[in-house]
């Protein structure tokens, strides 16, 4: 564990103690713009599009989410993460099932519905035509099993931080292991829920936003992963070989649960 700050002044996770490919410095060319955080609106979208039964109230959602930020703010080694982009999310109770199947049948369609509801002139396209059932599993050392386990027991509230900017997918996994225990590498449900609640997360008009990897999940093939990506004013889901390399436009997310 390092003793200095984990995140830089822009909220990017500072690469530390990892050997997989990553950029030490960034020129911040592919960046996000902070979506508006209106807990009532985000709550309503998540409840509607993820079909959350017996949800907590918007007030409770906001309270739990804000508590996550408060704890991070109090931690001098972690508080810089709040200088970066973040969005709250909520996940329904879900008994453990096939992640790929669930992503395809529930979460991707929820992202599409939310995105196209807010941006009626634009579209969401799932370019992956070959199905996801049986193809996704939790990557070792991603800590993502904790999120899945918690979701099996209760509704989950969390904050999503796309702060592993310019890390190769293996580097994102490796870096997560170097961070304090509360940080979990984002996978399918949390990343999708972040986009359901904040469908403008990947919308950027003045420049290009990053590609958002589901880095906590191993796919059916080594060196290949799934991701969300903007295409102009539109949003896409796709699969891409990354060959464990780094690109300036690649980002993975961390989540903190509360």
């Amino acid at each position: 564990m390092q003793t200095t700050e984990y995140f830089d002044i822009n909220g990017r996770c500072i690469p530390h103690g990892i050997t997989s490919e990553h950029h030490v410095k960034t020129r911040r060319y592919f960046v996000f713009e902070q979506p508006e955080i209106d807990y009532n609106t985000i709550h309503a979208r998540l409840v509607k599009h993820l079909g959350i039964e017996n949800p907590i109230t918007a007030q409770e959602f906001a309270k739990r989410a804000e508590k996550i930020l408060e704890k991070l703010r109090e931690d001098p080694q972690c508080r810089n993460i709040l200088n970066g982009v973040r969005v709250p999310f909520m996940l329904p109770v879900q008994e453990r099932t096939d992640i790929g199947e669930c992503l395809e049948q529930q979460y991707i369609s929820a992202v599409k519905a939310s995105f196209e509801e807010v941006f009626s002139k634009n579209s969401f396209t799932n370019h992956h035509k070959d199905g996801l059932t049986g193809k996704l599993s939790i990557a070792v050392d991603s800590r993502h099993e904790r999120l899945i386990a918690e979701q099996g027991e209760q509704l989950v509230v969390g904050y999503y931080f796309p702060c592993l900017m310019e890390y190769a997918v293996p580097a994102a996994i490796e870096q997560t292991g170097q961070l304090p225990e509360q940080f979990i590498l984002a996978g399918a449900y949390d990343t999708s829920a972040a986009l359901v609640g904040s469908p403008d997360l990947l919308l950027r008009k003045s420049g290009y936003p990053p590609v958002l990897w589901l880095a906590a999940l191993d796919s059916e093939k080594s060196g290949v992963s799934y991701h969300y990506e903007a295409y102009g004013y539109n949003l896409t889901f796709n699969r891409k070989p990354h060959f464990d390399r780094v690109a300036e436009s690649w980002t993975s997310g961390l989540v903190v649960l509360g």
Partner: protein
Amino acid sequence: MIPVEILADQNLTPAEKAKREGLKLRKPYVAQKLANIAAMEERGEISPIIRLEKSYLCNFQCTHCSAEYYMDRHKKKVFKIEDTRAKIDMDFVRRLSKEADELGLARFVITGGEPLVMKDFDEVVAALDPDKHYIITDTNGWFLDDERARHLKSIGVEKVQLSLDSMIEKDHDEFRNKPGSYKRVMRAIDAALDADLNLLLSTVLIKGRVKTQEFIDMCEFATKKGVGLYVSYAKPTGSCSDHPEFVIEKEDADILRDLEKEYSVFTHMTPTYGSFKGCITVKGIITVTSTGEITPCPYIDMSLGNMRETSLKEILARGMRNPWLGPYRPDCLIGEDPKFIQFHAKKTTGYTQLPVPWGQGFSDKNSLTEDII
């Protein structure tokens, strides 16, 4: 799991599928190589289209020409010099074809200059070997009549990329500095289609044009004709160096991305046939200049190496390990990234003999975060 090549085929229109079936019958080796591309990319191999600039002779002098600075007329008139560097010959072209084939590369574009003024055009096609490679030619259309189109087809050319820069005749002719060129393009479109050549219209997008009715008219024209409209962003290189106002903004690119939903229009970064490469430098395209230098893009005047000294395989590897060129990126490097544009301008300024050699522009020391000035 469905094999990637079949997934790629799922994205084809019935007309495209029919063309591929036809190619399979006529040129099975070429068809197989094209079918292998998706699987190659899945393995981390690349399959760039090779643009061959054997000659820069041209009967036009276009406002936005990316090759003008390579032309003898420019060197003589502006720099008062002659290019004494050794030029590539047919043995070089044959070697290029062989090395490309060994790497599984499948596509050549003969470009220039204006290819159809080349006296040795047919010889170049033969040296590339149309039974081993899918041969495409660029043209401004001036010389492409029925007879020439049928001849191109007969010698093994499969596709023609025809430049059209405005649906307004006067504007096209002015942009191309050639009265009568619009009419010749219209004639060439029909000639190419009648000769059963695959046809692509190619147009340059300058800032703001995407919002004009003229551009929509062009999209509609291409779509009704059943041909693709390939849109190239104006880049701040070549003759366009004098027109920085031509360079597009992200809004232009984004509007164009939306038009792709409605029209048969695309850029080099448009996801096609299941392939999502983003900027295609090295990964999807390279250019071989008349002196044997290989550049990663038609608009980047910095070499990755000379094929007389270095194998094609190593030159491609240099490109793929370069941080600007190899990694995936969704934008156009030379058309949109201000820092790279600045880097390119700094490295190329003062060079009268382009491209800038390997080691003086691109090198294994390049860094995304190095200071430019």
